[in-house]
C-alpha cells in the first residue's frame, strides 16, 4: 500500500501533535501548532488540485492565515507578555505525555477506520483526524496553563477540520470559514480573559483556580 500525498500530510499533522504532547515550552508548542496547521493547509491544497475547485485554495489560505499565523503570533506575544515559558503538566511530565500522545494516535487510527466514509479514498486521514481530536482532549486535561488549554482547543478543532476536509464531498464553504472565524474570535476573547486572570490571580495555572470551590 502506498501512501497518497494527502494521507502523508494528514500523518504529518498528527505527528506534530504527538510531538506537542512531549514538549513543555509554550513557544515550542506554538511551533508545533503552526506545523500542524501548515500540514492541514497543504491537505486542503491537494484536495483543490484533485477536485479542480478554486475555493479549496481560498480555504487553505484562510486556515493558514488565521490558525497558522495570526493566532500563534497572538498567543506567542501573550505568553511573552505574561512571562510564561514552561507548562510542566498537571498529572505527568513530558515523557509520559509523549507516550500518552502515541497511545492517542493508535486509538485514533483504530476508531478512525470505523468512521471513515466507505469507498472514500482516505481512510488513513480519518484516523489521523481522530488522533488529532484525541490528542487535543489529552492536552486539554493534562496541562496546567490557561494558554496551553487554548492550544489544545485549537488542536482539537484542527482534527475536526481535517475530518471535514477529507471525509466529506464539498462541505459548505460558509460553515468551514465560519468555524475558522469563530475560533479566531474565541481565541481573542480567551486571550483577554487570560490577561485578566493573570492580573487578578497573579498566575494562569488553571489547576490553582479555587475561588469557586467553596
Amino acid at each position, binding site marked *: 500500500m502506498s501512501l497518497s500525498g494527502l494521507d502523508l500530510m494528514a500523518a504529518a499533522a498528527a505527528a506534530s501533535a504527538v510531538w506537542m504532547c512531549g514538549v513543555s515550552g509554550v513557544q515550542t508548542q506554538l511551533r508545533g501548532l503552526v506545523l500542524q496547521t501548515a500540514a492541514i493547509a497543504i491537505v486542503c491544497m491537494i484536495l483543490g488540485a484533485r477536485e479542480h475547485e478554486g475555493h479549496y485554495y481560498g480555504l487553505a489560505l484562510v486556515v493558514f492565515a488565521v490558525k497558522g499565523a495570526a493566532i500563534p503570533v497572538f498567543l506567542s506575544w501573550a505568553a511573552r507578555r505574561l512571562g510564561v515559558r514552561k507548562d510542566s503538566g498537571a498529572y505527568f511530565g513530558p515523557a509520559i505525555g509523549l507516550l500518552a500522545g502515541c497511545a492517542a494516535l493508535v486509538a485514533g487510527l483504530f476508531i478512525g477506520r470505523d468512521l471513515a466514509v466507505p469507498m472514500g479514498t482516505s481512510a488513513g486521514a480519518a484516523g489521523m483526524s481522530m488522533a488529532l481530536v484525541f490528542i487535543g482532549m489529552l492536552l486539554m486535561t493534562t496541562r496546567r496553563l490557561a494558554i496551553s488549554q487554548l492550544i489544545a482547543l485549537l488542536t482539537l478543532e484542527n482534527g475536526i477540520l481535517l475530518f471535514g476536509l477529507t471525509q466529506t464531498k464539498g462541505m459548505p464553504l460558509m*460553515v468551514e470559514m465560519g468555524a475558522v472565524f469563530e475560533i479566531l474570535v474565541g481565541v481573542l476573547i480567551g486571550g483577554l480573559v487570560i490577561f485578566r486572570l493573570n492580573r487578578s490571580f497573579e498566575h494562569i495555572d488553571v489547576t490553582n483556580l479555587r475561588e*469557586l470551590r467553596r
Partner: protein
Amino acid sequence: MIPIGLLAVLPLVVAGLGLFPRSSPWLPRAAAGLMTLQVPLVLWICLPAFSGVRIVWGDFAIDGLGAAFTCITTIVVAAALIQASFLLPAGRANHPMSDRRFCLFYTLAGLFVVAMYSAPLAQNLGYMWMALEATTLMSAPLVDFHRNRASLEATWKYLLLCSVGIAFALFGTVLFFAAQHGLLQGTLSTPGLMATAKSLDPKLLRVAYVFCLLGYGTKAGIFPLHNWLPDAHSEAPAPVSAMLSGALLNCALVAIWRVSQVVSAAGQDDFVRSLLVPAGAITVLAAGLMLIRQHDLKRMWAYSSVEHVGLLVVAIGMGAGPIFVLHAFNHSLAKTALFLISGNILEVLGTRSLSKLSGILRFAPLWGIVLVGAGFAIAGSPPFGTFLSEWLLLKTTFTGNQVFASVALVAGLTIAFLGVMSHLAGVVFGPESDKSKLKPVPSWAAAPAVLLAGSLVAGIAVTPTAMSFLKSLFEAAGR
C-alpha cells in the same frame, strides 16, 4: 412578506448605542424601552408562523417552533433589560467603572440577542452551530461584568468548557454531512436532511447524533456535562443570569430538538429515545439531590435550571413537542422572575448566602411575595403553568412505558421541591437581617411580578384548545 432581518434591528440599535460611552446616563433606560418595544414587534412578525405559514429567508425560517422560542427569548430579554436599567446603575455606585466598560455591556447584550434569535431560526445545521458558538462568545464577557476573581474563574470555565462542547457539536455536524456519502449532493439544511433521511448512512448518523448531543448537551447543562453552569449563572450579574437561564438554555435545547428530528426521520426514533430519556431523567434526579445542599441563592436557581433542562430533554426524547414548548415557556418566565428578584436582594442586602438572608417578607413585602410565588412556580406547584407541563410530561412518560424514567422524574421533582422550599422558607421568613445598606424599592419587583402573572395565566390557559394549538406548531415540521 416580512423580512426576518427585521427581528435583529432593535437589538442591533442597542448594540450600536453601546459603542458610544457618552450614552451611559440614558442608555440603560433607552435599551429597556427598545427591548420592550421589541416584544409587540416580534409578536407581529411571528404571527403568521403561529397560523402555520413558514416565513423563509435564505437558510433561516420562522417555523412554529422557531416563532415560539423567538417570542420566549424576547420576553426574557425585555424583562432582563428593564431590571438592568435599575440594577446596573445602582451597582455602579458601589463598584465604580468606566463609561466605556459600562456601555460595552449593551453592545455585547445586543449581539448576544441577535445570536439567540439566529439559533432557533436556522434551518441549517451549520448555521445553527455558528449561532450557538456566537452566543458563547458574546455572553462570556457578560458573565465577567463585575470583574472579581470568582466571576473571572466562572468566565474561563464557561468559555473553555462550552467551546470544547461546541467543538464536539461541530464534529457531529461534519458527520451529519459525511453520512450523506451515498448521495450526489450533500446538504446541511434540516428540511433537506429530513427529506433524504432514509438514505443516510445509519452508523455515521448515530455517531453524528451522539457528538451533537454531547456538544449541545454541554451548552444546555445535561447532568455530567453541567458543571460550568452553576458557576456562570450564579456569578453573572442578575440580568445576565436571567438571559442565560431563561433564553440561552432554550436555544441549546432547540438545537437538540432539530438534530433529534433528523435522526427520527431516518427511522431511528428508538435510538433518540433511548439516549435522551435516561439522560434527562438522571439530570432531574441529580439536580434534585444537589438542590438539597445549597448555600447560595443564585446558585440554587442555577441548579434548578439544570433540573428543568432535564425535564425538557425528556420531553424532546419522547417527541412531545407541545410539552417541550409549554414547559420551556413556563420555566423561562418563572426562572427569569427568580433571578431578577434575587438580583434585587443581592444589590440591596449585599449577600446571596442562604444562611445570611432572612425575613425578606418583612424587609420588602412585595419582593418577598414575588419571590415566594416564583419559587412555588419553579418547584412545579399548582396553579402555576409549570405544574401542568410537568404533569403532562409525567403522563407522557407513564403512557410511553418509560417506567425507570417516570420513577426518577417523580423522585427528582419531589426532592427538588423539598430542597427549594426549605431554603426559600429560611430566606423569606424569620427576623429581618439588619445589614441593609439601602431601602428596597417596590417598583423593582414590577418586571418579575408581570412574569409571574404570565406563569399564572399559562397555568389557567392550558386547555385542550391551547394544546391543539401548540400541536399545530409542529405539524409542518413532522415528527
